[in-house]
């Protein structure tokens, strides 16, 4: 197995990023305008990167499959964004945010990356406030903070339950500023369907214009993927319907390494599934766990209404098992605990797959008005969906797929193993290890786009003055033809089943065999079932319409085809990681108390997979994780 070079700068932890910035090559303003940068995605990472690079003078083309850059799924993030500002004077610091994030990730991320993230978090809040993001304020006018899972300080900044929306609209404002000024070309309704690699370097993309069906070539000096995560491989997730893995998956098939695909996060507080017609689950922000208490009846199969169950017959299991963190235990732990009580037959609601999140005590303590101010929109959303009033009855929640920590492998520069290909935000694997803490996704997306890529891009571009890629090169021709071949193939099957059907079946396999808990047996099962389903897909799918028109069924079928391949890699990675860590829980590897049992000797590493063609299994490369500054401990939230 080849070792991977993470290019982490030498020196003490707190000096690495500073030293890097001091010595990183700069591109002069007159040279910046000679470089074309393609940015795929317009969420927090993509919009912030595109706007910042355009503002610096690069030629930027930004692509989004949506009708507007403001639709990116970052918009749906609710709870908040972490930053080590210590405005609350409660003992926070860059070190603590770094340590909490590393520990939350179960010591499966790089020290240097995570430390940099914690450092940069300070600037993000400054930047966003300057843009006019209306963060929540105290009566004295200061910025307000709330607590989040996995932390004992209040470091989360928020804008009601719509923090992602406000941060994205801030970045969208910057993006719009650059578009309006003619410094950035925005391409909406444009989906990346292939990466063009020339002499081993990423030098362009193939885009399908979704309204006309035109397959277009775009050359670039560097390609930036900020296309989000792949939770939708599970079919049911909290991701938006359009969220997909196509850009990263097709880049993987062009040689980019896919790291830790098995690190998936299952969010503990989602609205339970109501029926199999459902294709999307709704998240209730983790911030609710600040004031809500999670419980189930002590007795199995207790059919009484929640208010009929007296206190002494309720099991506040998180408070019982994790007294120090209580209801704010990290997401992976809270999710598995919910599964555990439901497996014991103590789940609530029509399906038995649910637990209560109860605000009665907080309403008594703080009054309904305060709770309404803090979470009003979430309570309203809950009532919309379930028809239940959570001020009067406890909410019912259940875990659902929410975030993927895995993604394309990147080094400290956020560059993949393919020179010229940068991967930002959820699309990369870099900062959250085996589990992400709440309010850290927004932080990472904006850190990558505003403050990291603009500094690291120069190191690559300064070597690229002589290479000007042209769209007439055979590599472009070949990639364009490959895209056309795939879309034609999808249209030619003319079977009888919708892409929806295959997506749903894939989701069932993964949730059942590779979900909250996994075992060698279940994973083997997944590895045998997925290829069979894929084979059926290519024989039985029906994609109506044509290639040269606005065809949503065709877009969706292409994404499902990619999920059918990615799902297999996910299961393969999970099988190979013979330990439990963070969101990856193998039933064979647990401590006597049921907590995840890591194996640092064998698996303190990044597993990065390299595509070897359709007929062969991918090869595994490892990047050892070295802990120089922190001693990885067994996570303990008790």
């Amino acid at each position, binding site marked *: 197995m080849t070792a991977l070079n993470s290019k982490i700068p030498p020196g003490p932890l707190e000096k690495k990023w500073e030293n890097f910035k001091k010595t990183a090559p700069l591109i002069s303003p007159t040279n910046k305008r000679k470089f074309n940068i393609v940015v795929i995605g317009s969420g927090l990472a993509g919009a912030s990167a595109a706007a910042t690079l355009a503002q610096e003078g690069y030629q930027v083309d930004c692509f989004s499959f949506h*009708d507007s850059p403001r639709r990116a799924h970052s918009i749906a993030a609710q709870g908040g964004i972490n930053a080590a500002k210590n405005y609350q004077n409660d003992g926070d610091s860059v070190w603590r945010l770094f340590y909490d994030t590393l520990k939350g990730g179960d010591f499966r991320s790089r020290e240097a990356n995570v430390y940099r993230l914690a450092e940069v978090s300070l600037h993000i809040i400054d930047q966003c406030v300057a843009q*006019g993001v209306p963060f929540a304020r105290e009566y004295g006018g200061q910025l307000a903070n709330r607590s989040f899972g996995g932390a004992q300080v209040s470091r989360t900044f928020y804008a009601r339950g719509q923090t992602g929306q406000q941060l994205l609209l801030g970045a969208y404002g910057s993006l719009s500023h650059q578009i309006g000024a003619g410094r950035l070309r925005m391409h909406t309704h444009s989906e990346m369907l292939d990466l063009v690699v020339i002499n081993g370097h990423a030098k362009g993309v193939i885009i399908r214009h979704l309204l006309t069906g035109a397959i277009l070539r775009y050359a670039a000096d560097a390609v930036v993927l900020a296309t989000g995560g792949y939770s939708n491989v599970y079919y049911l997730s909290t991701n938006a319907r359009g969220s997909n893995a196509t850009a990263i998956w097709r880049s993987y098939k062009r040689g980019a390494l896919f790291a830790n695909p098995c690190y998936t996060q299952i969010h503990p507080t989602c609205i339970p599934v109501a029926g199999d017609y459902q294709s999307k689950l709704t*998240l209730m922000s983790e911030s609710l766990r600040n004031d809500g208490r999670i419980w189930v009846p002590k007795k199995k199969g207790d059919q009484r209404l929640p208010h009929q169950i007296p206190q002494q017959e309720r099991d506040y299991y998180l408070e019982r098992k994790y007294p120090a963190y209580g209801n704010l235990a990290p997401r992976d732990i809270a999710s598995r605990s919910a599964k555990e009580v439901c497996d014991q037959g103590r789940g609530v609601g029509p399906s038995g797959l649910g637990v209560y999140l109860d605000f009665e005590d907080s309403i008594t303590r703080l009054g309904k008005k305060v709770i309404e101010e803090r979470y009003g929109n979430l309570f309203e959303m809950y009532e*919309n969906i379930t028809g239940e009033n959570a001020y009067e009855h406890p909410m019912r929640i259940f875990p659902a797929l929410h975030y993927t920590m895995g993604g394309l492998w990147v080094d400290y520069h956020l560059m993949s193993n393919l020179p010229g290909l940068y991967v930002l935000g959820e699309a990369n694997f870099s900062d959250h290890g085996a589990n992400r803490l709440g309010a850290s996704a927004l932080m990472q997306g904006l850190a990558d786009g505003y403050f990291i890529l603009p500094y690291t891009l120069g190191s690559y571009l300064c070597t690229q003055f002589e290479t000007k890629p042209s769209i007439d090169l055979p590599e472009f021709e070949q990639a364009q033809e490959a895209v056309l071949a795939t879309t034609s193939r999808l249209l030619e099957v003319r079977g009888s089943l919708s892409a929806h059907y295959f997506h749903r079946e894939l989701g069932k396999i993964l949730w059942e065999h590779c979900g909250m808990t996994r075992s060698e047996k279940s994973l083997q099962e997944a590895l045998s079932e997925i290829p069979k389903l894929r084979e059926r897909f290519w024989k039985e799918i029906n994609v109506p319409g044509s290639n040269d028109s606005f065809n949503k069924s065709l877009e969706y079928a292409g994404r499902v085809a990619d999920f059918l391949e990615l799902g297999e890699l996910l299961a393969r990675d999970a099988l190979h990681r013979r330990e439990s860590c963070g969101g990856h829980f193998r039933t064979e590897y647990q401590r006597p108390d049921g907590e995840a049992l890591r194996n640092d000797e064998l698996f303190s590493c990044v597993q990065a997979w390299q595509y070897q063609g359709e007929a062969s299994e991918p090869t595994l490369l490892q990047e050892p994780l070295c802990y120089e500054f922190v001693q990885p401990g067994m996570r303990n939230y008790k």
Partner: protein
Amino acid sequence: MKSSLNSSSLGQTRAERKLLSFTLRIWRQENSHSPGFFEQLDAKDIPAEASFLEMLDIINDRLIEEKKIPIAFDSDCREGICGTCSMVINGIPQGPGRGAACQVYMRSFSPGSTITIEPYRVKAFPILKDLVVDRSAYDRLIQAGGFISEHTGGAADAATILISKKTADAAMDAAACIGCGACAAACPNSSAMLFVGAKVTHLSLLPQGQPERSERVFSMVHAMDGEGFGNCSNYYACEAICPANISASVIATLNREFIKASITL
């Protein structure tokens, strides 16, 4: 609220699947150049708990299985926040009740009723296919000045700007706009003034928005006229249907800001 408490599943001990049937009268149009028409479709055996868009998903799957062309409609987050939804249900942009179309549930329709579904009818939002319209005009309004020209890096520490809670809350109320375009679709004049007013209000309330205050309102209003949106004549239909609860008072703010800018600029 899009729903009533009648069909609550609280205390329900096992899944009782109630099925409902409807008739859909739905707008079909192949592309921006071709004429459109209403097509009648049966929506049989729809689970009572399904959302409106889940009902359309079910219908589309059936159409695909029957080798017919599914209905093109826009949706993404299905949580009412992304603003991608853009349909008119029974004459109401984004459907009955508060919230976006994805927050409409089938339980709010009488079983057996006929439901009319059509795209927004706004000149500045041309129809692309079936229920999908082109709302890029709203992006261009923001590009005209709906932002603070803050360059990345170099911002002062966030704690140096104090904003009263009242002001921050009012700015947030206006900033909550999801950019779905329902305001223009509901307005008899196809006015975009709720949308523009929301952005102008959000930014003019905040100290960070002051330096560009006058230029912003000027350029946004001119862009709005240029796109072919009409003027506000106080129908308040926009406020009545806004999925993000934006108050029509932002239009008053917009007018005030515009007049102030006209005097001072």
